[in-house]
């Protein structure tokens, strides 16, 4: 019988390796068996309270307990939405408006934050429900009704109008992703992951799902360590972490501050990175230090579940050559389409479009935004077939590898996060006293600069924005101008402002 529910991974592994650590933060070590039992308890609790096929918000700090909550929600036939205390309150409110959740599971550290939220939902403290008596009969009935196209989570991503978009993904897509990712990069039962990315993105699926499928182990590395490279390497060595899937900036932090020479991570054998350009000098430092490790560049949008393409570093790059995206995972096809929906010329540029089981269910509660980018395959008029248009422009290089070229719009990648500059502009414009706003990205110095007009100081604006935007979306500098530069057509001159941004100190 083939797999139709992601929980079958967990159930099989908990039978085979009940006492092995599944998830840990270095303080608590949660075994597969405990994870399974807590998940069933929470699933039973939610189901007996009547929740079914609806979003359940998990408002907890990153901790092994979050996984019991996630899988518990899936057991109940609902889908989880992870919220983190790092998210600004206004953003959380926007997400709640979109979801209208009936239930929120929270931890004691976030009790005050949850109380600030308005809405018609019930609040459950994780510790109060983790040991509920589980009811296998009830869970079995839910399982029978579930099909593999039912959603299991919603992940929110930046939206250009200022409202985050919630991507919903189903069992089938996540199973497809887990299977093909493990096969492509070679995770196994001995894999010890060191997780860096927050749990409210799709990025940690790379660690979570292979961990329950294979019986591997994931350590949640404390966020603070990513400021202190020697301590971070101590942590990696202490827990014999052999696999990392990190954003490039986390890797370059270690290498550029000189920690690789002084305290190399000796167990690393698999290093996956992605989401942004890897400065070649830093990349070479890593390759020189971890000579026995395999390096993979991963590429993919949240809308296609997680990662869609991979490239293994096994040839020298030419000077100035970008690290390729490579090729798609099995059971995924990449199409390069021109503006008229036709295939790009061989070697020519086109929009990267994704076809396959990995294409998700679209944006939750937003059919308009969904239909803009989840579209009928223009190369097929004969039957219904949705593809996802990424908005990324790519081409095939002389080695036959896919390469990222640019964006169609003003979406950027910063610190590994995908950001719509329009979302930052929309937030600035909600601030009283601001008349106009324009944000640009200085790719060289890796910083967001905002220009605005209005009678308030940059300090006041920055402080205001902290309530709206996550840390990584805050402009490095807000610049108050008398007027914003315009093009001959009277539009905001983004090119001019991009140039000006490069000459601004910090």
């Amino acid at each position, binding site marked *: 019988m083939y797999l139709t529910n992601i929980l079958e991974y967990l159930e099989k592994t908990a039978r085979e390796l009940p006492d092995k650590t599944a998830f840990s933060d270095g303080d608590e070590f949660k075994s597969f068996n405990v994870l399974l039992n807590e998940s069933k308890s929470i699933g039973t609790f939610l189901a007996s309270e009547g929740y079914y096929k609806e979003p359940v918000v998990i408002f907890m700090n990153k901790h092994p307990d979050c996984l019991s909550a996630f899988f518990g929600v899936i057991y109940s036939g609902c889908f989880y939405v992870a919220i983190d205390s790092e998210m600004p309150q206004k953003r959380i409110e926007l997400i709640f408006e979109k979801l209208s959740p009936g239930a929120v599971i929270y931890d004691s550290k976030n009790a005050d934050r949850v109380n600030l939220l308005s809405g018609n939902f019930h609040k459950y403290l994780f510790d109060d429900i983790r040991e509920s008596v589980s009811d296998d009969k009830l869970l079995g009935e839910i399982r029978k009704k579930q099909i593999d196209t039912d959603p299991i989570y919603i992940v929110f991503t930046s939206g250009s109008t200022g409202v985050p978009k919630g991507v919903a993904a189903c069992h089938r897509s996540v199973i497809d992703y887990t299977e093909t990712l493990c096969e492509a990069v070679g995770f196994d039962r001995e894999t010890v992951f060191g997780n860096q990315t927050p749990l409210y993105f799709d990025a940690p699926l790379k660690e979570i799902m292979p961990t329950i499928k294979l019986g591997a182990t994931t350590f949640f590395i404390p966020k603070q360590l990513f*400021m202190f*490279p020697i301590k971070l390497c101590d942590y990696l060595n202490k827990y014999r972490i052999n696999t990392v899937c990190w954003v490039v*900036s986390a890797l370059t932090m270690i290498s550029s501050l*000189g*920690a690789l020479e002084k305290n190399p991570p000796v167990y690393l054998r698999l290093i996956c990175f992605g989401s942004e350009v890897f400065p070649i000098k830093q990349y070479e430092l890593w390759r020189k230090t971890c000579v026995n490790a395999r390096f993979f560049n991963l590429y993919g949008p949240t809308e296609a579940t997680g990662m869609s393409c991979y490239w293994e570093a096994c040839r020298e790059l030419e000077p100035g050559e970008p690290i390729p995206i490579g090729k798609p995972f099995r059971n995924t096809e990449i199409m390069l389409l021109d503006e008229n929906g036709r295939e790009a010329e061989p070697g020519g540029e086109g929009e990267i479009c994704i076809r396959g089981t990995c294409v998700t269910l679209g944006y939750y509660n937003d059919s308009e935004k969904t239909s803009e980018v989840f579209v009928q395959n223009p190369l097929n008029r004969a039957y219904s077939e949705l593809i996802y248009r990424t908005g990324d422009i790519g081409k095939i290089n002389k080695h036959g590898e896919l390469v990222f070229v640019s964006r169609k719009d003003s979406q950027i990648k910063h610190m590994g996060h995908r950001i719509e500059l329009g979302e930052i502009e929309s937030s600035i414009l909600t601030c009283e006293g601001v008349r106009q706003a324009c944000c640009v990205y200085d790719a060289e110095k890796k910083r967001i600069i905002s220009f605005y007009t209005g009678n308030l100081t940059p*300090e006041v604006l920055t402080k205001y924005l902290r309530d709206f935007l996550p840390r990584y979306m805050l402009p490095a500098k807000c610049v108050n101008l008398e007027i914003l530069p315009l093009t001959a057509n009277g539009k905001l001159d983004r090119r001019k402002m991009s140039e000006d941004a490069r000459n601004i100190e*910090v």
Partner: protein
Amino acid sequence: MDKLIEILKEIHPDVDFETENALVDDGILDSLDIVTLITEINDRFDVSIPAEEIIPENFNSAAALYDLITRLDED
């Protein structure tokens, strides 16, 4: 010290660096800030901070950071 406060103010205009002494523990500084700080200190003080000195104790306050810069400058 004024020069250092200036650098810090450019990163976080809304923080009172004269009195704040838990920049790391309270989560005011993040990893990008640390990298920016180290780069700016290198540029403007001509002091390079070695990896083993990049520890929370040296970054929790402007005063601690200034002590570090002075110490490294003397070496």
